[in-house]
């Protein structure tokens, strides 16, 4: 059994739920309390892929907003990333799109999963499938997930792990 180590970054706008997704995935917990991540927070999780395991080092990077731009040095050496969008705020999709463009220009095309978070609030979503079309040519996987309920979370990380380990 070969164990690979991979760096995965959590990218996305401000308050889209990156930390919550990591907490749900790594510790299976969810807290309503909001903590703004400063700089970067690192977690890890072993994800089985086929017969092997991928040791994912998750870099939960502070969300971008108008005042803060993610430092490129945090992105170096990553094997893939999870681009998180808050379904209830359509502007986070634009942030994600911009981030994706920047990552591609910096590191080239890397596997990534587009996670539309807060699926538990799907009734309040501003992001429609139509909006997501702008990612259609990226060959990425789009997963609707909820850090609160845990829906889609495992799937998102697992899919990415599969893609980066092949």
């Amino acid at each position, binding site marked *: 059994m*070969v164990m*690979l*180590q991979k*760096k995965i970054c959590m990218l996305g706008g401000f308050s889209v739920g990156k930390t919550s997704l990591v907490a749900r995935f790594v510790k299976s917990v969810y807290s309503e309390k909001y903590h703004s991540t400063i700089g970067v927070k*690192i977690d*890890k999780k072993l994800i089985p892929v086929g017969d092997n395991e991928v040791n994912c*080092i998750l870099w939960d990077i502070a969300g971008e907003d108008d005042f803060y731009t993610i430092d490129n040095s945090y992105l*170096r*050496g990553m094997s893939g990333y999870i681009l998180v969008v808050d379904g209830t705020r359509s502007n986070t999709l634009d942030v994600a799109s911009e981030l994706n463009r920047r990552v591609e220009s910096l590191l080239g095309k890397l596997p990534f999963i587009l996670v539309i978070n807060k699926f538990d609030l799907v009734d309040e979503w501003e992001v429609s499938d139509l909006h997501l079309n702008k990612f259609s040519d990226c060959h990425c996987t789009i997963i609707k997930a909820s850090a609160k309920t845990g829906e889609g979370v495992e799937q998102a990380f697992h899919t990415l792990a599969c893609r980066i*380990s092949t």
Partner: protein
Amino acid sequence: MSVTSSSPDEPAKQAEPRLNELKSLLLSDELERLQQLQQQHKAFVEQTQESLHRIKEDSRLTPERLAEQLPEAVLRATHQGEALNNSLAPTIEESIKISVTKNPKGLVNAIFPILGPAIRKAISSSLYDLMQSFNHVIEQSISWKGLKWRLESIRTGKPFADIVLLHSLLYSVEQVFLIHKTSGLILLHETSPQSANQDPGLVSGMLTAIQDFLKDSFATQPHDDLESLRMGDLTIWIEPGPHAVIALVIRGNAPSSLRNTLQETVEKIHARHALELEGFSGNTIPFDVSQPFLKQLLKTQYQEEQKSRPPLIPLAIMAISILAIAAWSIFIYLDHKRWDAAVNELAAEPGIVILSHQINDKYSVTGLRDPLVADPMDILSRHGFGATQVQANWQAYHSLQPEVGLIRARQVLSPPASVDLNITADTILAFSGQASSAWIKQTQQTLPTLLGFSHYDFSQLINSDAMLLQGLLDEINSTVFYFASGKTKLADKALLRLNRLMQTIRSAIQLSNSLEKTFVLNISGYADSQGSATLNANLSQQRARNVRHALMDLGLNGKHLQTSSHILDQSDERYESGRRVMLKATLNSTSTRRP
């Protein structure tokens, strides 16, 4: 062979068909043979041409051929002289210049493994000089630590710089991380058994993130790297290489030599895993072979020397201080004790009363002193107190203590050597020995002036005059004068004897007077019983009278003389020498004679 070679042209043109037929009939075998030979010849020519071509080709210097020959050619050229080196030098220099201008990183990566050792070698020599100057600085420092190290250097005979180094070598490397530089992924991790560990993957990620954060937050040069983090006694040393970083978690104060080891390890790992590092894609297994490198970094240097050896100098100073304090205390205690003993002895001394005493700048004592007793300073000096050390204030007084009374009695009475004065029953002054009656008389008159005695005891005092008188009396009484039969006159010899005795009698009379006694000398005349009783009575009487007269002639007053006469009968034991005069001196009490 000659036919076949010359025939083919002419006959063929003239009678071709027939000739051919004929030839085929006659020479079929030869023709076939010729054909074979022609083919063989052609093949041979082709082969030869090919060989020639190949030889020609081979002799040409193709790049492939050159590549094959070059190493050997260079080797030979090197052996032959410096021509090749000289001709290559400008090209190589130019190539390096171009390489550096185009892509400095490649060259940096290439020479990285040798760059470190070269720099270190240069630095170590300058560090040695620095250490020497550091030595000078410490030499002049008067800090406790500096002095302590200096003393240790003297004690152990080691150079001072070594001692300084020894004291900074107290550390423990608890964890070693080999981290992939760009991704922050952990490649290898080594930990000491006793250290508590966070997940190395997270730690390496965080360390990389911190580095990124610092680079992002502060304006740093692109090649600047975070080298150390410090919190309390925990230090993290980070040694970056081109592709990988080693981080040490150190508890305590690690010496700079560890940094050198760390650099060497980074270089070794880069040299060993250049390809794996460059193309790292998450597989850490190839790096496992370098685990021993990391293990070597897990060093622990204990302060063994310090542990095994107690801090002698502070202990010694403490001990000396304690001893000094103890010695001082003992000295003070003994001094007080000595003073108290001296004062107690003074107080016990008769005729001295201590009112107060103390020790300040000087030893001071106040009291009463009978002038008759010894000087108190004698007692104090016997205890080691000099006259300059002591401030004494004595008031004179008359002591009634018998001891002082005795001194006073001796001073006042000035007894002769034959007289002893003593105190009995605390308050009785006892006289013993011999003294003249004159002294005794005078003493008895003086006694009321003496103080401090209840009684006076003369029972043991012998009057020497009485003894002397007795001796004189005995001498007188032993004197006998003998007479021839019928004679009463003293012989000349007897007169001389009487003359000598006269001196004794005078002394006896004088002593009797001083003892207030009356000296009486009884002169007894004796006669034997031969002849008539009357004659014998006359004889004895005359004999006594003659002695009396002789004494009176010598100046003796008749009042001291009495005579008596005796006749001895034959039964008397003194009969044989009965014709004689015997003297008997007696003392009569004067008082009896007084009214």
